[in-house]
């Protein structure tokens, strides 16, 4: 049996770890609330954006537009949104797994645009080509950053350097439920069955300039808003995941501490008993 001193030392070390995980949980709870408020505030924008793009695409039908056709190149760009910090459970590795486990995405054809350091580190280790690293923009998601990234990607798409653009992020369903999601940004795919619900409205919608020209201008905004939305949701998911991970860590520490407390008491009792036996044995020997 370990000595009393060892057990005591171990216990106090776990206690201080528990204090850290508890504090981290509180911090991420506060951050989660803020991030969730942000995500909710921007939601109406994306819904409107999605509806508008949907109504345009459903009217335009199968027009030969550069954003609706696959690009000339085999290369695929993937924007990978992860966090800069770890200790968030499976949050980062789940996003990375979306790419490494996906058979349609060949390692050789991919160009990674890594938003957040953790994803870059993991993908770099498995030998993916990292085209760009943008660790700072996930700290405080700003629409301007998303717009710049979208413009760069669209430019390489138009120049034929990349043929498809994907977005890998963690979608925020609620505080405990986060779903790693892989989304195809370009060529724009639109669910042709969906628009039926409000076809009465989209049937009479007019466009100025004409549909195709409007697509030219709206698609970049659409892509930018999707990237921004993904960043905002990813931040909320990150903090949610960290909160959960730290909550688990805290309760695991609690369990270990009570286990060690029991062991410590047993060891203490054992040593008292032993000392007593020794004293009595000594007294008997003398008598």
């Amino acid at each position, binding site marked *: 049996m370990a000595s009393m001193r060892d057990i005591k030392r171990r216990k106090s070390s776990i206690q201080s770890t528990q204090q850290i995980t508890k504090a981290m949980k509180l911090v991420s709870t506060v951050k989660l609330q803020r991030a969730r408020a942000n995500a909710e505030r921007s939601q109406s924008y994306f819904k*409107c954006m999605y509806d*508008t793009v949907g109504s345009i695409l459903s009217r335009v039908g199968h027009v030969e537009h550069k954003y609706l056709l696959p690009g000339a190149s085999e290369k695929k760009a993937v924007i990978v949104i992860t966090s800069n910090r770890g200790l968030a459970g499976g949050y980062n590795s789940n996003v990375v797994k979306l790419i490494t486990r996906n058979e349609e995405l060949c390692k050789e054809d991919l160009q990674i645009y890594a938003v957040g350091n953790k994803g870059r580190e993991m993908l770099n280790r498995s030998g993916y080509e990292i085209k760009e690293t943008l660790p700072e923009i996930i700290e405080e998601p700003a629409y301007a950053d998303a717009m710049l990234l979208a413009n760069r990607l669209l430019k390489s798409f138009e120049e034929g350097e990349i043929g498809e653009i994907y977005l890998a992020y963690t979608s925020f369903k609620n505080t405990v439920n986060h779903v790693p999601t892989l989304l195809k940004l370009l060529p724009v795919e639109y669910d042709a069955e969906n628009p039926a619900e409000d076809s009465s409205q989209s049937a009479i919608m007019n466009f*100025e300039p004409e549909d195709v020209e409007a697509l030219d*201008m709206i698609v970049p*905004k659409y892509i930018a808003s999707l990237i921004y939305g993904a960043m905002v949701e990813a931040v909320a998911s990150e903090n949610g995941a960290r909160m959960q991970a730290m909550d688990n860590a805290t309760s695991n520490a609690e369990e270990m501490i009570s286990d060690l407390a029991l062991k410590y008491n047993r060891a203490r009792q054992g040593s008292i008993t032993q000392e007593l036996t020794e004293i009595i044995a000594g007294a008997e020997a003398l008598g």
Partner: protein
Amino acid sequence: MADNNSFQLRIITPDRVFYEGEVDMVEFNTTEGQVGILPGHIPLTVIVKPGILHISEAQGEKQAALHSGFAEILPDKITILAEIIEWPEEIDEHRAEAAMERAQERLRLKEAGTDIVRAEIALQKAITRIQVLR
């Protein structure tokens, strides 16, 4: 809707709801030119160009600098999805003036490698900001 002289206006940006309310008329600049929208307009989607946004509501008039985005117009409702929009009090006049001078300089010199289209857009934005302030 209480009467036919007003309609619902919603201006949303990626990170906030910029404006929401009943208005009598909205005017702004589009790729096809200046437009003024009154209630009962035919359904129309337009692309925004930098310009001043005038909102006429029952209590008076409001202005804002609208830089980019697009608008969905329905007979009883307008939704403007604005990427960049500012109230006059949010504009930094010195910055706008400096930006205007920079853009003018670039357009005047027309050095090799200057992105003329970008400079023109920057100039337009700066002019809009200054106009809204005055």
